[in-house]
């Protein structure tokens, strides 16, 4: 009787855990390196409803990262990691730009987020 109860509890626990794992959102980690005057990579592709974690770094000066479509605007300081999290709930092709003046090539620092 006692053994049956333990087995039942373990079974319930396993079922609960598997439900939690399936329900847990997929986190897509994207690392972007900013430098004068480019983002590497400049194109990021994710799927709709992906939970995106962008890890932004700079190798030289302070840059900015502005993704208008998702209302994201942050600075990227040299030798520091900037982490932004968002859910890619809009399908399309969205531009992002460097939003902090970083030098004479600043205007060409652009990239694209593609949400499929």
């Amino acid at each position, binding site marked *: 009787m006692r053994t049956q109860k333990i087995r039942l509890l373990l079974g319930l626990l396993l079922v609960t855990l598997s439900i939690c794992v399936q329900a847990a959102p997929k986190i897509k980690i994207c690392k972007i390196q900013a430098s004068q005057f480019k983002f590497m990579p400049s194109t990021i592709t994710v799927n709709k409803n992906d939970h995106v974690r962008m890890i932004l770094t700079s190798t030289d000066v302070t840059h900015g990262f502005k993704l*208008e479509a998702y209302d994201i605007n942050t600075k990227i300081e040299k030798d520091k990691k900037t982490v932004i999290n968002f859910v890619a709930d809009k399908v399309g092709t969205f531009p992002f730009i460097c939003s902090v003046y970083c030098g*004479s090539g600043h205007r*060409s620092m652009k990239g694209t987020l593609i949400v499929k």
Partner: protein
Amino acid sequence: MMRLFKDIKNVVILLLLLLFFIQIPQENIRFVLWILTGVLFAVITDLAIYYTQHKKLFLPKSAIITGFIVAGIISFQEPFWMTILFPIIAIAAKHVIKIHHKHFLNPANTALFIATLFNISLSWSLESNIYILIIAGLYFVYRLKKWGHILGFFIPLSVLLLLRGTNPLLMISWFFLFIMLIEPKTSGIGFLRGLIFGTIASLSSFVILIFIPQYDFFVFGLFITNLCNPLLDKLFSSPR
């Protein structure tokens, strides 16, 4: 042809047009409409204000330049109404903010300063060819006798950037240096005054870069420097 070059504003407008045309292939139709709208509304505003005061019309070359600068620096990805609003702000600032009947704030820079305070992106799209900018810029400096301004800005900022391990030749905006910093009406005349003006702009830009880099440090620095114009006027007792 020589008559055209006699007025330096004509040369500046030609340069801005050239930079605009160079950038077009790298952008899209929105960029073209953005710039043209900015120039149009700067011109309309200047004409409207001038007509209200003088009952006369004129060719507003300064407004054309202001429109190009404001629209060419604010990111054209921003909401379209901004390319209407900020040129209007620039021209209005020129006519409203005055001391002794003269404006002391660089009009385009004032509008850009307000834009950067509100975290509006400044992409400096019109800085499309630095080689043309440097050649034309040196000509402007020679014509307007702004060597003090250029040296006062370039040398201290370069030293400070080098100490920080940053290449000043990559970091300095040549558009800012040769178009905005030496704007004749608000930058003062004379080598010494220019040197001081340039140095204040240089140091304030650097401080902004270090402590609050999310704001455009050139625009912010020039605004701070323009605020010193009344004091500089008193010290040098010479008209701007």
